[in-house]
């Protein structure tokens, strides 16, 4: 096995503890890095070998949970989804995500993000509550209807879009790209009938129309979603409703699950021969 090249990279990490007071400061740590190593790996090295008081949030290490969002070289990234080598630099500056209050070091308070998310009714609303509580069948949805909003279901609430958004930076009451995109996700769902109520919630001074369409949210999303598109589609729904073009959509009906399923791929039949 060939010897792996190692390179010393200086991590300049913002340290801040509100309980101790003082202004945030940058502290430097030299990290031996190798090919394929992520920024999160570097931070774990710092915590385990250099300074155990460093605080950062991480969980899955594979870009699924959305816990390790941070500002790396002035750009919001997931630390586990960003390789150190990508920057072609001997110095990496790591700071907490902007537009959110800092709890400690690289850990930000995501409460405003979740408050905004919760405020737009991020769940299916239907008139048949009994069926919702005690389902007897399925809510029908075609693949085409699913495609209308499928990409927005991949949002993992990491807050990177909000950190990148210039409107969220200046307007703390702005709902933000995450909540607005999720609002569209549920409004576009054919199983839902809560569009009118949800559109009323985003038709405010700090709602959908406050988006400047900078597109930074779509540019920065680590899952490749396009929240800016969702907000534009949400604006179209708002305009259609205000002008009376929007037809009242009934939620998709309850359909019985298929009684028998056709096997698309002929599975080979395996049988274990008994030893004689």
């Amino acid at each position, binding site marked *: 096995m060939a010897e792996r090249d190692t390179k010393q990279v200086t991590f300049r990490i913002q340290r801040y503890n509100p309980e101790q007071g003082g202004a945030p400061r940058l502290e430097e740590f030299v990290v031996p890095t190798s090919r394929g190593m992520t920024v999160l790996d570097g931070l774990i090295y710092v915590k385990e070998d250099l300074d155990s008081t460093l605080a950062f949030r991480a969980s899955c290490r594979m870009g699924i949970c959305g816990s390790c969002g941070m500002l790396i070289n002035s750009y919001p990234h997931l630390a586990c989804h960003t390789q150190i080598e990508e920057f072609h630099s001997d110095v990496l500056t790591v700071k907490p995500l902007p537009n959110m209050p800092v709890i400690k070091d690289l850990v930000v308070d995501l409460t405003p993000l979740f408050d905004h998310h919760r405020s737009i009714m991020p769940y299916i609303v239907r008139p048949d509550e009994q069926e919702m509580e005690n389902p007897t069948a399925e809510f029908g949805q075609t693949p085409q209807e699913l495609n209308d909003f499928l990409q927005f279901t991949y949002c993992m609430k990491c807050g990177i879009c909000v950190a990148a958004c210039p409107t969220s930076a200046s*307007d703390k009451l702005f709902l933000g790209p995450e909540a607005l995109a999720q609002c569209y996700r549920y409004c576009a769902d054919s199983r839902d009938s809560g569009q009118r109520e949800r559109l009323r919630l985003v038709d405010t*001074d700090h709602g959908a129309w406050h988006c400047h369409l900078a597109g930074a949210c779509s540019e920065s999303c680590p899952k490749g979603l396009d929240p800016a598109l969702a907000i534009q589609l949400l604006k179209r729904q708002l305009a259609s409703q205000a*002008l009376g073009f929007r037809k009242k959509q009934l939620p998709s009906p309850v359909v019985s699950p298929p009684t028998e399923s056709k096997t698309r791929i002929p599975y080979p039949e395996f049988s274990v021969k008994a030893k004689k």
Partner: protein
Amino acid sequence: MRTRFHLIHLVTGVLIAVFLSIHMVRSHLDDILGTDDPTSWESMMSRATDGMWVALYIALLAVALYHALYGLRGIILELTPSARAARVTTWCLIAIGIAAFGWGTYVPIHLLSG
């Protein structure tokens, strides 16, 4: 509710482009159109006493004021986000808009009426 105001904002933007284009063509393309000098006293007075031109300029003033003040309101509310700031800003801008519209329409209406 915000949607209606925003749609009016978009429509006034288009109307400004249309009305301003008419004004620019009449005021600056006299050589091409073969019309009289638009800066002469007689030409200005003829436009000021023509109902169509007066209506055009008053409409231009109205849509430009709405477009400008609504845009300004959006900027102010983004920088000072609070319900009280929104209320005060809205009423101040409505007052400024009405005052500016009254001031701007006084002369053409006065000239038109007599």
